[in-house]
C-alpha cells in the first residue's frame, strides 16, 4: 500500500521519458524539421516530447487563425491598385473596443462620398483580435492576418497602424486563407451573376411593357 501510488506515478513519468526515445528511433533522426513527422508529432497520435522548436520550426497556422486585421486591395492588370473597402462603416460600428477609425471623403467635384477610405487606422493596443470586423464586412475587404511576429521596442509610433501599413494585396489573402478565399470568390461570382440576371430580367420586363 505505502508507496505504491508513488511508484505508479513515477512509472508514468518514466513511460513519458522512454516514449521520446522510442519515437526518435522510429523517425530515425528525422523527428524534427520534417513535415511528415510534424503532422504526427503535433496531432492526436503524438507520443514523446511535444516541443515545437519555435524560431526554427513553427506551428502550422490554421486558415481561420486570427491575430490582427488587415485590409485588402485588388491589383489590376494594368498595375494600378484598388481598395476593396468602400468605406461603408460597418467595421468601425461593430468593433467591440472601437479601435477602427475610418475617414471617408467626398468627391471635390460632385460633393458625393467616394466609396473608398481616405484613411484607415487601427489601434493595435486596443484591438482584441475578435475578428468581428472581418466577419461582418460585406465586401470582404478586411481580413484577419496570420502575422504574429510583431514585437517592438516602442509603441507610441508603431501601434496605430495606418492604411498603408494595413493594406495587403488580395493575392496575399488567397495565399494565407486559400479555402476561405475560394469560397468567398464563388459566393461573389454567384451573387454578381444573380444580380446581372435580375437586371436583365428587369430590363426584359421593361422592354416588354
Amino acid at each position: 500500500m505505502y508507496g505504491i501510488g508513488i511508484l505508479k506515478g513515477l512509472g508514468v513519468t518514466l513511460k513519458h521519458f522512454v516514449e521520446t526515445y522510442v519515437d526518435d528511433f522510429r523517425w530515425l533522426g528525422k523527428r524534427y524539421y520534417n513535415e511528415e513527422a510534424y503532422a504526427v508529432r503535433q496531432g492526436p497520435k503524438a507520443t514523446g516530447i511535444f516541443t515545437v522548436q519555435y524560431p526554427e520550426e513553427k506551428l502550422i497556422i490554421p486558415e481561420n487563425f486570427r491575430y490582427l486585421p488587415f485590409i485588402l486591395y485588388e491589383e489590376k492588370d494594368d498595375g494600378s491598385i484598388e481598395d476593396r473597402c468602400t468605406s461603408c462603416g460597418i467595421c468601425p460600428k461593430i468593433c467591440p473596443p472601437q479601435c477602427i477609425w475610418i475617414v471617408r471623403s467626398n468627391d471635390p467635384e460632385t460633393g458625393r462620398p467616394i466609396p473608398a477610405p481616405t484613411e484607415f487606422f487601427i489601434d493595435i493596443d486596443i484591438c482584441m483580435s475578435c475578428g468581428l470586423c472581418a466577419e461582418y464586412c460585406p465586401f470582404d475587404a478586411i481580413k484577419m492576418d496570420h502575422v504574429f511576429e510583431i514585437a517592438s521596442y516602442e509603441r507610441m509610433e508603431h501601434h496605430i497602424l495606418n492604411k498603408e501599413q494595413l493594406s495587403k494585396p488580395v493575392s496575399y489573402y488567397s495565399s494565407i486563407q486559400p479555402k476561405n478565399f475560394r469560397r468567398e470568390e464563388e459566393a461573389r461570382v454567384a451573387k454578381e451573376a444573380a444580380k446581372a440576371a435580375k437586371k436583365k430580367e428587369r430590363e426584359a420586363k421593361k422592354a416588354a411593357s
Partner: protein
Amino acid sequence: MTEGLNNPDIPIPDELAGSIAITTLDKIYNWGRRSSIWPMMFGLACCAIEMIATAASRYDLSRFGMEVMRPSPRQADLMIVSGTVTKKMIPVIVRLYNQMPEPKYVLAMGACASGGGPFKEGYNVVAGVDKFIPVDVYTPGCPPTPQALLHGLITLQKKIDKQSILKVNWYRKEAIPAIPIPILGPDLIDPRDYEKIRNLPPVQEESTAEA
C-alpha cells in the same frame, strides 16, 4: 581563437579602438545574460495563461534558459506583464518592479499591458503599464500566442545583445531612483503628478465629465 576575440566583426570607430576588449567582453557578458533571463512568476490576466502555456512543454521556455520562473522579484530579471493592469494592482506592480535587482527588463505582453487593450475605457484599468514603469518590449495581440510571446522574448534578447557594459546604468555609482508607488485615493494618485492634480482646472474637470 584570440584572433576572433580581438577582432570582433563590428566596425569600431577610432576613438573606441582602445575598448575592443570591452566589446568582446560585452559579447560574453550579454550572451550570459540573455541566455538566462529569469522571468518573474507573476500572472495578471488571460495573457498569463498563454504565458504558462509558453513555459509548458509545447513551446518550452527552457530552450531559452528562461524556465526558472521565480516567484520572488529579488531573483528575477524579467517582468512579463501578462494582462490587464488595474488601478488596484498597479501599486503592487510598481513595488515589485522596484524590488527587482538591476539589470531588469519589462515585457508588456498583450494589448492590455501595452495600452489598455479592450478594457482601456474601464474605470479601473491603467491604460498601459508604461504609464508607470518603463517597458522594453511590447508584444501586441490579444492574447499573443505562445509563439508571439517567444518572438517578444527573442526581441528582448536582441536588445540585450546591443547593450554595452560601459554604457549600462547599473554599474554607475549613483543609485537608480525607485519609482514612486502610486496611491489609491478617490482615484489612483501618482505621486509624480501631485502638482498637476492640484492645478487641475476645475472647468475642464467639469467638461470631461459632461463631454
